[in-house]
């Protein structure tokens, strides 16, 4: 099918940043379910300067669709810890990225970066969603920031400065000053919950791996491509382990630094 006449949107996302890779997956997924995007003709790939989406949508329309979706996302808690809840968006039920499928479920998921004291809805999702600014009122919806709200810790730009010095931003007293990238936070976690099976990305207790494909592919293949399941499609393979810096392996709060390329 020809995709002439589609818009080529360049989104300056960083392929080494797990949250931004998941955001790209979410944006591709949202495009594929938007009729005006001409989804069957749309393609996407990673270029030198970011993620490229060739679609019938304009950037504003894409961000509008994303903003609308993110505002419908809710966390439904289970009876116990975060592993038992799930994300929903309207009538759609997402998967729970905090469940580990490795080692018969006996390992923890590296995506659960927060302690048991953190309520995913009250402390993270609801606050982030409330602070999200609509695309019509900002030129830089994708990279909007806010302060005083915790992060899912998938974004390597968030919180690492304090951890790398051996103390958390709570201890440092700068927690309220740490910025988070609200749209990327929300896109990242919804990308992990609704648009790809991140449980399959797990490499070990702390590490995940993903692939960055550099050839245009149909949007319907994104979840396979990012998981590295399309043998023969040109791709760069990344690995990233979460860490709690000076708090060692047992740290309750962890974060994902920049991923390193493997091949």
């Amino acid at each position: 099918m020809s995709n002439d006449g589609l818009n080529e949107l360049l989104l300056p996302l960083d392929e080494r940043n797990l949250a931004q890779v998941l955001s790209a997956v979410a944006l591709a997924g949202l495009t594929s379910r938007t009729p005006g995007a001409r989804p069957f003709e749309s393609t996407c790939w990673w270029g030198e300067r970011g993620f490229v989406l060739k679609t019938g949508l304009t950037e504003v329309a894409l961000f509008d669709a994303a903003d609308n979706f993110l505002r419908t996302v809710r966390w439904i808690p289970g009876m116990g810890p975060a592993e038992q809840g799930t994300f929903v968006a309207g009538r759609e039920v997402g998967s729970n990225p905090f469940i580990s499928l490795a080692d018969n479920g006996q390992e923890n998921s590296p995506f659960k970066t927060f302690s048991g004291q953190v309520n995913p809805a009250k402390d993270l999702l609801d606050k982030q969603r409330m602070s999200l600014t609509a695309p019509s009122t900002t030129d830089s919806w994708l990279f909007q920031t806010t302060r005083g709200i915790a992060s899912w810790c998938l974004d390597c730009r968030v919180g690492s400065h304090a951890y790398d010095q051996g103390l958390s931003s709570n201890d440092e007293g700068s927690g309220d000053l740490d910025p988070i990238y609200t749209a990327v936070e929300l896109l990242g976690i919804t990308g992990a919950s609704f648009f790809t099976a991140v449980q399959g990305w797990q490499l070990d207790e702390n590490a995940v791996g993903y692939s960055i494909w550099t050839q245009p592919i149909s949007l319907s293949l994104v979840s396979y491509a990012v998981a590295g399941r399309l043998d023969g499609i040109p791709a760069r393979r990344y690995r990233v382990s979460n860490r709690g810096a000076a708090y060692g392996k047992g740290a309750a709060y962890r974060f994902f630094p920049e991923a390193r390329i493997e091949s």
Partner: protein
Amino acid sequence: MRSLPVQRREDEEEQDETDAETHVKEILRRFPLRQAELHFVPLQDAKDWLSSDEASAISVAHFDGEDWSLTWGAEGMQPLRPGAILALPTLTAAHASLDKLLDDASGIASWDVLDGVSMQRSLYKRRVVQIESGDHRLESQDGASRLERAEAERRVDSASVWASIGDPLPDSGWKRRLSRSLKVGTTAFRFEYWSPERGGEAGQLLEDHVARAQEDAANIGALLAPKSDFLQSLLVEAAKRHDLGKKNPKWQRAMGNHDMANPVAKPVVDRPGAIRGYRHEWASLLEMHDQLPVLPEDCSETDRELWLDLWRHLVGSHHGNLRPWLSEKVLDAHPVGKQRQSVLRLESAERFARLQRLLGPCRLAYLEALLKAADVAASQTTEEDDSDEQ
């Protein structure tokens, strides 16, 4: 399974010095326990029993999901995980706590399992032969190759043969695949494993198989949706083309057939040759690409596109591949140009994703299963036999 011999006997049949543990592991790997031979016990109960004094005196074979290992009780055993399998000697039947754990330990019979519970024919048969007298004997009444300690007055002084598996082995059509002699106590037994001989069956001709598959597909379609020309024609047309790739001389030769005028649908040799990545269903799809099937009448353009998508997908996925991808190795094994294959592979993957979205994963899997059912019924084989196909 409850019959694990623990010592190996040296005899003229096996001159190598391989130890008993290696033999037991080989048997378990090559002739896996059947589902119905297993007792399902809670993980913690199994762990508790393994750490008991009773278990420390018993040799236990442990399958951790990847390989078998032999230990005495829990000592040296990898941590027990959900889904692990433990195989214990039948000699342990008299142990009280194990009996409690297994609940029905006194009545285990495996012959019915080995004969195949729901299969059209047995996957394998086991026969145990006592070849030397000693302090153990074979109790074969229940067909479970049960070994027990013999009381002095009941010891068998001369070698005797006990066919332990229910029905006697048929005179022909079965071949002994493995024979290992092992010693239990001071008694030597020979453990034989038999499976059907492929060469003993008439190899099914491809033409016959495809005709039967079409017939079965038509029956399935008529039963499930008598008024749906769409479904019936879809299944019949997919069945007609599903094995086109088997005509390839490379595939035929690997299956043991050298008569290219009469291609076969199934291997006619015990061990089909390797064809390094060749997939007959991919070859079918490559060949189908330029063909136009008989489409259902009065089909709208949208239905026509859906029908063609499903037709190609059902053929390409009837062995579970192309859902959504094929490896480079497969492409390398086919004579069609790599670039063209890459394009068709991408199209196939997109088609799979498109159909999944349109129909939902369960409905698509259901349609895949209908063609598969017609294929298996026409083959008169089991799914496990089918896995030999390439």
